[in-house]
């Protein structure tokens, strides 16, 4: 998943903030609880208030992210 997401970051860096949380880092336990982490890879698209807009679990093709990004950015 990493190369796809990083490629998207290069394309959307100025409109979407990309955050990468290591599930083995104890400092991320709070985020895992808040965002209801299940298993990796898990990607969550949040709005400015921290509300979940989209969520993906498992391998996801790049086009699916692009559709979701464009939908949110068009709002």
């Amino acid at each position, binding site marked *: *998943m*990493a*190369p796809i*997401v*990083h*490629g*998207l*970051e*290069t394309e959307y*860096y*100025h*409109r*979407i*903030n*990309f*955050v*990468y*949380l*290591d*599930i*083995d*880092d104890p*400092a*991320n336990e709070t*985020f*895992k609880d*808040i*965002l209801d*982490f299940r298993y*990796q*890879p*898990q*990607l*969550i*698209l*949040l*709005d*400015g*208030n*921290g509300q979940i*807009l989209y969520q993906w679990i498992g391998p996801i093709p790049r086009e699916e*992210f692009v559709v979701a990004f464009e939908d*949110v*950015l068009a709002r």
Partner: protein
Amino acid sequence: MRKNVKCSSSQMIPGICFAGLLILTACSNSAAPEPTQPVEVQETQPQEESPTQAPADTATTTAIVTEQGYPAPAPDQGSDEATPEGGYPAPEDQLPTLGNQTGGYPSPGEAYPPPVKTELQATNPSTVNLASGELQLVEFFAFW
């Protein structure tokens, strides 16, 4: 019969003065006109030179020659008309132009695009704010 002529020094002085006056006159006549006054020379090209040339009535050229012999720029030429006929651009044309350069540069405050990452790199958890006021894509991942 040879006549012996003696000249005294008092008789030679007027002669020397006259000779000096002649030399000065000759030198002053050989001097060029005043440097600040250009001499206008008109050249008329022959009509039979080339069949492709313009008609002879428009081929008359005028050049102003200074004391040193170099052609001076015509007094009615404006400095704004940049390129002389010799093919050399005017100095102001050789300067780089400063215009609005749109594209290629980010606007102020806009960050440069991050380099494409080939490896996973975790974000520092202390810098993460889920309600940051902007869209965020959060990825949970593991290095294993």
